[in-house]
């Protein structure tokens, strides 16, 4: 995750605290998900950005997960995510997210 995104997430948590903040990921690549998830929970594993050594412990979900999809206006979801949902390997994303959250 690039330093600028880390900085924005850190600013949000500094302002609102980490109890009401959830990170919604959008990457399709399992490796990228792993790094992004680690960054907003345990801290930037690459020690390159503002979240190096900062353990925010934020809950992490993915825009392609059904629980997230349910909460979005279907028309907006279809416009913004519909094409991605059709073309990406959605099961690979689900599986990476389960692993990320230690759900086996």
């Amino acid at each position: 995750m690039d330093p600028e995104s880390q900085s924005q997430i850190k600013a949000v948590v500094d302002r609102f605290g980490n109890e009401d903040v959830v990170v919604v990921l959008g990457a399709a690549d399992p490796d990228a998900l792993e790094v992004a998830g680690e960054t907003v929970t345990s801290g930037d594993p690459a020690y390159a950005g503002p979240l190096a050594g900062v353990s925010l412990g934020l809950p992490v979900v993915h825009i392609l997960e059904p629980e997230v999809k349910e909460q979005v206006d279907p028309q907006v979801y279809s416009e913004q995510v519909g094409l991605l949902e059709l073309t990406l390997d959605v099961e690979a994303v689900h599986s990476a997210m389960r692993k990320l959250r230690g759900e086996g």
Partner: protein
Amino acid sequence: MGGEEVADTPPQRHEGAVGPGRVLESLLAGGGEVATTLVCGDGFFNEQPDEAHEAVRAWLEEVRPDLVLAGPAFAAGRYGVACSHVCRLAGDQAIPAVTGLHPENPGRLVYPKAYAVPAARTAAGMKEALEAMTALGRRLAGGGELGPAEVEGYLPRGIRRPGYRDRPGAERAVDMLVAKLSGEPFRTEIPVEAYDAVAPAAPVLDLAQATLGLVTTGAIVPKGNPDRLRRASETRWSRYPLEALEALGADAYECVHGGFFNMIACENPNLVLPLDAVRALEREGAIGRLADFYCCTTGNDQRLADCVRNGREIASALVDAGVEAALLVAT
């Protein structure tokens, strides 16, 4: 420091620990300290190797550290190459050095004798890699004799040393065969090298008469990405027509490679797949003819097995089309 946007950063020295070095400090736990850190963008290191190598050499001569830890580079190719060079340069000055590489990192080809611990694909494996690098580094810096790779936990360096075993080779071989036939695990004593040496093709006799094929791993695809070529970890390749095209327009082609900042390639796809330049050469008579299609995949984090298969399939498609020379354009 960051990602692709700072890949061109020239070498710079920092006192003490920077970035992952802070984790190293805690792993050393008083049994040593991070004296200095050399930072360099992996783009710079690979594009201006003379300057980068000289910076490493001068830094090592001045600091004379007891141990150099480079990386870990995980599966990042350019970074892995840089780390291997650092290990080689340290070796030239008899300074022990350790890096951390994913077993498929091409950096291993640069200096196979580097001591590299196996690392995960991504920085998510940072802590484990640094722990292994520190442990191996301590043993190297202590001057003790290291055992074989499989015992000490580093990646094989292609070095064999004579030694004694309890039982003769024939008995061990039969045991292995029995285990293999029974479907039980066994460990070969002569592992097959992970990388094949590819023999270069014979030179093209007369380029002015030859049919040239264009191949790219830069993921230049018709706009809309009809075959859904992936940004990374692609397993397939595609072919697209070139007939009647003089150049690749930004209105009709785009770059979907996820391993570099691809906006510039989207604005002018010819920078990656130089159709405009090759057409000019064709008109000048420098090459005979350009094949009427190009072959394309995403050369980003592709598994070695897929690279080999894709390479064979692309070569076969080119041969079938009467192509006598292929231009594989670097990204």
